[in-house]
């Protein structure tokens, strides 16, 4: 392609080559990219279309329905009894997990970089090792034991505790590498001005770590919203479970769990994340560069 770029520059004065010839490599490039983007989008588009199909169209299976039916969305809320409960469980557990994990990660990340505790290096090493060890799977036996000891089996609130640890290590490491970008001199200057460590964190360091915060938020949201293993293991009551877990157990068929209804529930569950992300994507990409790649 490079020699071609050079050639292109030499030849471009010659009008004999057509538009296609000149842009061939760019066209192939965009073609390949768009092919992959199509593969990414197609399954999602299929669900979205399914959720607005009339029942016979859903059976027929064509992508574009002959008759649209937008009533699914209100139907599933009114007719599937546990749906509002499960949806509330999801929101509740996810909010709790995201807030608490972020709090832990911000405090720990800040302390590791700017307060420099004894043994901090050891903690970082332990966090890194926990990323490579299949902790989530192997520890489930003991987590079940802990939860039943605390009387938290079948408790939706109880799920928050193990959920926090799912991304705790990576969240702390992200916040740590983001706080490393805050110059130590700035922190020292705040100290000289008489600000304690808490105030320094809240008013000076945290605003500078905004992008990393967004990444931690999104990563924890996605994990908590879609968690399956812990939720199925630690609860067995449909009403205590989160929406995605109920959806995973639902068999597509007729009645209230007919395919378009399932698809409508799916869209309701998946959309908040995508919308939230679309708004935060600029901060997210910046935070990714700062926290994940350099960390």
């Amino acid at each position, binding site marked *: *392609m*490079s020699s071609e770029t050079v050639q292109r520059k030499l030849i471009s004065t010659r009008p004999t080559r057509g538009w296609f010839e000149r842009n061939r490599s760019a066209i192939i*490039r965009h073609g390949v*990219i768009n092919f*992959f983007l199509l*593969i*990414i*989008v197609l*399954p*999602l588009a*299929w669900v979205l279309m399914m959720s607005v199909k009339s029942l016979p169209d*859903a059976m027929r*299976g064509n992508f574009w329905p002959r008759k649209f039916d937008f009533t699914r969305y209100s139907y599933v809320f009114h007719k599937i009894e546990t749906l509002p409960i499960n949806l509330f469980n999801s929101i509740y557990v996810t909010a709790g997990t995201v807030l*608490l994990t972020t709090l*832990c990660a911000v*405090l*720990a990340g800040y*302390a*590791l*970089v700017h*307060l420099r505790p*004894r043994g*901090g*290096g050891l*903690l970082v090493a332990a966090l890194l090792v*926990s990323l*490579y*060890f*299949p902790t989530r*799977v*192997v520890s489930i*036996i*003991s*987590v079940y*034991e*802990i939860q*039943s000891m605390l009387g938290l089996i079948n408790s939706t609130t109880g799920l928050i*505790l*193990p959920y926090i*640890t799912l991304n*705790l*290590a990576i969240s702390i490491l992200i916040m*740590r*590498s983001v706080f490393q970008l805050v110059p*130590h001199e700035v922190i020292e200057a705040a100290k000289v001005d008489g600000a304690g*460590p808490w105030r320094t964190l809240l008013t000076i360091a945290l605003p500078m770590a905004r992008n990393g915060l967004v990444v931690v938020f999104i990563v924890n949201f996605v*994990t908590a*919203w*879609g*968690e*399956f*293993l812990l939720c199925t293991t630690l609860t067995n009551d449909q009403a205590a479970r989160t929406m*995605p877990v109920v959806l995973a157990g639902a068999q*597509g068929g007729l009645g209230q769990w007919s395919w378009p209804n*399932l698809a409508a529930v799916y869209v309701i*569950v998946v959309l908040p994340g995508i919308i939230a992300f679309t708004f935060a*994507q600029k901060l997210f*990409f910046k935070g990714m*560069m700062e926290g994940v*790649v350099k960390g």
Partner: protein
Amino acid sequence: MVDTLQSAPIVASGRTAGTRTRQRRSVDWKSEWRRNMGTWLFLLPALIFFIGYQVYPIFRVLWISFTDYQFLTNEPVKWVGFDNYISAMRDPLMWSSLWRAALFTLMFLPGTIVLPLLLAILVDRVKNPRLATLYRVILIIPAVIPSTLVFVLWKWMYNFQSGPINHFLVDTTGLFTIQNAPQWLGGTALTLPSIAVMEVWWGLGYHTIFFLAGLAAISKDLPEAARIDGANEWSVFWHITLPLLAPIMMILVVLRFGSAMAVIDEYLIFGGFNRASPTYTWTMFMYEQAFKIGLWRQGFAAAIGMIGAVAMMCVMVLLLRIFRPKG
């Protein structure tokens, strides 16, 4: 506080936060101690959860694996030494289930590294800023779909009767008939590859973004200079871009190896506890032994979990050694 004022910031570069050279002073050990206590207060919430729900459970499971422990029984727990490990190693299911996990990893890993790498190199060359942003946003969408919802989506996609893939193969193109249409999930030979395709789809955009960040960090001068010297695009990629991306690739290979070997949610959703199914890996073996009413053998399950975890950790250490950047 006065102490910190004088000791100039040593951590300018950041990375050395944990390993800074410590200045020893005989005078201020008391205030030093107090400072450390205040610091650990910041770490306390994270430590409670990290130790309570990650460090302790691992050691607890290690202990359980040497006993005949069972949930919710009043009988005293007996130490059985290596009995659980010996009976696990003698069980052919242990080895076949480990092999299945390895097989899945072999199907999944190349695709999830190579495809995003190629895609990243293509997207990196898109010069139009708006288009570049749009591509990135679409690419990352699957990464913000929570895990279970990805599995549910593909469970529908692969559905034998009403899934769109079989609809495309049977009704639209007529390549198959209802009788011989492929059964993607449900314990056939196609199941593991199907799940691997789903996982590659899920990670495609995220890994591409990962590589794009790596490419952005590479200076454009070096490839440009090589091009002027007459290197073709392929050798620029092979001799300059790829070695510079190697550290990022290493992280991805090792992390994804780890997650692929320890997959369980997908198998629970797609496979169930059918021991003949290719989705019955060591994680499922462990889970079934621990949680299925009637089996309820937590000690044995803990041993299975430990064997599986140690086996995959060994390979991961090996991978880290192989991929360690030279020099």
